[in-house]
């Protein structure tokens, strides 16, 4: 267990700046998830922490020690790679104990450690197999087991679930969360999947083009996104965005004019409004179908019935259809007219011209 601090960390490959001035504090025992679209620099940031890449500028502290110039092996970390990185010619036992030999452990000590980790991960019956004789999920466990036996201060995971099928992904996700609770170790976890981020993290770090967009707890990010990028990234299906104009306010409510000329009313945000033009953000799960007197009307362009819920793609004369979450038994068919109700108090987000959030009610 150790805490980490990143101070204005930069990384350039040639003249391409991939990580741009990242400042971040990670408390001991925290589960931190780096999330962001593909190519935003998540893996690179993780590899900087691991020491697999050199930090171009800035400082990295682990457990109160400046480790910029320490080799990976001296940072007290263990890493689980996306491709598992198992040694193909070694058995599971050899894979898990290979790194321990150097810590001067006897064979019996190593064996004890490996067996214990294998028991936790339920792979004790696989110790004599080679990686190619294992399924993807089993390989994944071996890779995690290999990290556990090292007893690192910080665990690093780079998209560990992306090679698993959907069912196994959910199962392994839950097990990783359990493992974190049991070990109380600091974990940094990289993913492009916001569901993994929401379900696993104590703290989410949203990255975009090498910059930190926002740091916060999953609920923070969901309810109080700092900007349009975070709002769009967190939550599924993604938030709807509508360009709007200020049309009046009575202090408690705010009137906004849509491009179509229709006026919608939302709870007035706390912050002062600057300017006239805004982007209104509405999450699909905060919208509902109304039969009459609906503030928004349109035509269902497509309907996805998932059983437990339905998603309506409603054409309201905007470039993108409005996505509305409806109950699973929703009877609306494609082509039919739909009325949409807005959230009464919470659930409407307003962004200014620079895509920054206007503090909501």
């Amino acid at each position, binding site marked *: 267990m150790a805490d980490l601090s990143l101070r204005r960390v930069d990384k350039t490959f040639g003249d391409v700046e991939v990580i741009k001035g990242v400042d971040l504090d990670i408390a001991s025992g925290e589960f931190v998830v780096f999330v962001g679209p593909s190519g935003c620099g998540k893996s690179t940031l993780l590899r900087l922490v691991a020491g*697999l890449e050199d930090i171009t500028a800035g400082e990295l502290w682990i457990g109160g020690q400046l480790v910029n110039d320490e080799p990976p*092996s*001296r940072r007290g*970390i263990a890493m689980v*790679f996306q491709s598992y*990185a198992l040694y*193909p*010619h070694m058995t599971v036992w050899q894979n898990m104990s*290979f*790194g321990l030999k150097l810590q001067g452990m006897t064979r019996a000590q190593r064996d004890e450690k490996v067996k214990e980790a294998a028991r936790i991960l339920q792979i004790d019956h696989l110790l004599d197999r080679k990686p190619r004789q294992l399924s993807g999920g089993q390989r994944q466990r071996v890779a995690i087991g290999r990290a556990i036996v090292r007893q690192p201060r910080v665990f690093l995971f780079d998209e560990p679930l992306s090679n698993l099928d959907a069912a196994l992904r959910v199962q392994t996700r839950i097990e990783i969360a359990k493992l974190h609770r049991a070990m109380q170790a600091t974990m940094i976890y990289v993913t492009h999947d916001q569901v993994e981020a929401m379900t696993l993290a104590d703290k989410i770090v949203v990255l975009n083009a090498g910059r930190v967009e926002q740091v916060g707890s999953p609920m923070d990010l969901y309810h109080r996104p700092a900007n349009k990028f975070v709002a769009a990234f967190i939550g599924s299906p993604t938030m709807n965005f509508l360009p709007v104009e200020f049309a009046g306010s009575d202090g408690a409510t705010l009137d906004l004019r849509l491009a179509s000329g229709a006026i919608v009313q939302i709870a007035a945000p706390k912050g002062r409004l600057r300017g006239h033009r805004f982007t209104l953000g509405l999450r699909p799960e905060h919208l509902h179908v109304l039969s009459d007197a609906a503030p928004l009307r349109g035509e269902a362009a497509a309907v996805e019935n998932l059983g437990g819920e339905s998603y309506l793609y409603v054409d309201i004369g905007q470039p993108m259809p409005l996505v509305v979450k409806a109950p699973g038994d929703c009877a609306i068919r494609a082509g039919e007219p739909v009325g949409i109700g807005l959230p009464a108090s919470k659930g409407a987000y307003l962004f200014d011209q620079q895509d920054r959030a206007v503090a909501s009610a």
Partner: protein
Amino acid sequence: MAARANAGSALTRQRLKSAWLFLTPMLVVLALVAGWPLLRTISFSFTDAHLSNLDDSSFIGFENYVFLLQDPDWWRAVQNTIFFTVVSVSIETVLGLLIALALNAHFKGRGLLRAAVLIPWAIPTVVSAQMWRWMFNDVYGVINEIMLSTGLITEPWAWLADPQLSMAAVIAVDVWKTTPFMALLILAGLQMLPQDCYENAKIDGVHPVVVFFKVTLPLLKPAILVAVIFRTLDALRIFDLIYVMQGNKQDTMSMSIYARQQLVDFQDVGYGSAAATLLFMIIALFTVIYLYLGGIGREEKA
């Protein structure tokens, strides 16, 4: 279920048919350019054919082979060839591995260097052998000149005449010529190795030397084995390099050179064919042993 099995086997049969269709041209060409000469050679080896009257020959059974196995010159050639093969292939493997490891590192101009390394291999053997013959010349050769001027030797060495030195010279040239090929074969194997395993070893703090012996070498074994087989089979047939540098000299005569001497110089087609056939048998035997020991086929399947 039965219908499905039937459909499967019909598909299998059709695949087999097209496989044969694609293989046929190659098999025909192989039969013409390799199979036919081989059969001719084997059949000549049981006759007393002479180069001047190939058609007027008679079957003499194993007589040629009996003579061959009693000829000390033939055994000398076998010994030379095996010595040449073992020593040159060993040196080439070790050097090739070292060069491949160096070329696999990341540095500027790597692509250029990789191409440059291949030059000795790209030069036709006859040309490079002739070049080296001049360089090894005891009177005006550059090798002696360098070794004299640096004080390594005090008087010129007769590289191509001295029985001990001439084999060393031939092996040196073969190493110079073939190591790049070996290095490239091994480099191809190196580039297939999983990079993240090395990163994991780095995080674990495994010493690079340990990584080399415990990770790189075991993973590289199949690639090295293939390269060694290629080179061994090639070295067992060595002809041009030695012939250009040394001609028919006893000290360096290989099995191929012996066969050629019988066939062409002594015009004894029957006897020469027997030598060539025996050479073929020895190479075939080596191939089988290698494939068996290396377990290449089994490893692919596992």
